[in-house]
């Protein structure tokens, strides 16, 4: 009964909330563009500035490279591991093929899954603990940041617990938490998955236009 609900209606509802919510928030951000007319003469191209900043921010500033090295490595390790798990873990690929796209691709081998999950957990745990331990990041963080991190962690954890697919209860628990995450996603800091592009792009465009090498 509960299993049918999680597998059926709740999945469609959460997917709809995710898609509509993300689209609505991105639309709300993009429609702000051009709302205020800038009269000054442009010193540089905005498009180039946006693209350059989007790419350049993948590398930390030289001045902070040493101080932030650990966090940057942990961040990359977590995000790359999570990406690999999300799209290339065999059970996920099958789910996406059967329920979303209708086509599949070559999944990670088992050892690849193990490596990706180790990297993702390593990075996420370190980042959560660092957020708590550093007084600056602790001051900057609100409850939403912790909820997002913990939700992602438990989704990953239950996914690994259900890895062998030996128990239907564990699979449903993982799917249920993933659905909660999808519903929570558009209203949280997890939106940075998409908004990092608009955020960096906007900053880069504005400053390049002013002639600032940002």
């Amino acid at each position, binding site marked *: 009964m509960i299993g049918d609900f999680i597998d059926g209606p709740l999945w469609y509802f959460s997917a709809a909330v995710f898609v509509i919510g993300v689209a609505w928030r991105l639309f709300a951000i993009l429609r702000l563009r051009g709302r205020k007319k800038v009269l000054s003469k442009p010193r540089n191209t905005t498009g180039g500035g946006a693209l350059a900043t989007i790419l350049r921010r993948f590398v930390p500033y030289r001045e902070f490279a040493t*101080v932030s090295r*650990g966090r940057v490595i942990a961040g990359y390790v977590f995000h790359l591991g999570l990406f690999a798990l999300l799209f290339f873990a065999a059970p996920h690929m099958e789910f996406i093929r059967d329920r979303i796209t209708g086509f599949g691709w070559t999944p990670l081998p088992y050892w690849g899954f*193990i490596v990706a*999950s*180790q990297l993702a*957990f*390593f990075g996420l*745990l*370190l980042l959560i*603990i*660092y957020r*708590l*331990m*550093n*007084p*600056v990041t*602790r*001051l900057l963080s609100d409850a939403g940041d912790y909820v997002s991190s913990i939700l992602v962690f438990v989704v990953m*954890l*239950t996914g*690994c*617990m*259900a*890895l*062998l697919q*030996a*128990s239907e*209860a*564990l699979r449903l628990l993982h799917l249920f938490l993933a659905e909660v995450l999808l519903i929570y996603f558009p209203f949280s800091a997890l939106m940075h998955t998409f908004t990092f592009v608009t955020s960096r792009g906007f900053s880069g465009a504005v400053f390049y236009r002013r002639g600032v090498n940002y």
Partner: protein
Amino acid sequence: MSNNVSSRNRHHRVVLYSLLSLLVVTLVLPLVPYAVAELDPFAGKVANPGAEFWRDVRQRDRGVSGSTQVKGVDSGVLINYYGEEWRQFRMQRLVPYGAALMGVVLAVILLFYFLRGPLRIQDGPAGSQLQRFSVTERTVHWFTAGLFWFLALTGLILLYGRYVLIPLLGPEGFGVTATACKEAHNLFGPLFLVALLMLFITFAKDNVYARGDMKWLLKGGGLLGGHVSAGRFNAGEKIWFWIAVLGGIVLCVSGLILDFAVFGQGRVIMGLSHVLHGIAALIVIAVSFGHIYLGTAGVEGTLGAMTHGYVDLNWARSHHDRWAREVEEAGGVLTAEEAARRQGKLSASQSSGEPVTGESQ
């Protein structure tokens, strides 16, 4: 005429007695070995061909394996004799003795707490503070501790779950829990190796033997009264560090052998690894109870060292006087306000307005 009748009757009797004799012999002959076995005390030693066959199958007395078309580690072994030894060790030694060890340590800690109570800061808190652990040190500590306790809990569920959880969850519920714990334990295990390496790199330099450590040990670390001098880490903390590191190495090596059974390790090596893994885990878990007690309820003012990173000056003078002197001479004593500001505890209106960047990484 009468001769003929007599001859026929004799013939009938002979046939009848012959048949009866045959029947008796047929019935009695198979019983002869049993009768012999009953009468002859050495008859039971006669080798039974069937027993010989099964002895070969079990390979109880021989270190040879059979031949088979199936290629793989131990594929020539039909019944692993050492499996039974391993099972008996696990059920009759590891499980009860491990529970007893943890129970005794917990009982001693509780008894000590009720008899002695928490160790108070001599002369009470001074107010001024010293930074004891940096952000990096605390992050590494909690990363290792978090992984350790996650692995400990999932491992203890696998070891003791059938006694504790089956009555609560039922066999099916425990089956799901055990499956989940096994997967999570296997997955997080290799991460502990990384954590252990980080812990060693971060803390090893301050945990080598130094002059005064033996004196500290002989005086019982001051737990029973009196002051004992110590540097940044006392001898007790150093012993715990090396138990954690060496026990952790045993746990990691044996765990990796169990986790990745694709490098040709056979059942015997797997069984030995399991035994070592269980013993090392239970010892480290039991000792960690003491570490947790002394880091929280056992010694006043200690927990803050690992949460916000700062300790009271009098706490440092009470428990780590040599280290406190070094920090004082280096000008590392902070006022309560400054320490609170560095910990991010003061709001902007309460603080001097300087950015919160003073804490060392």
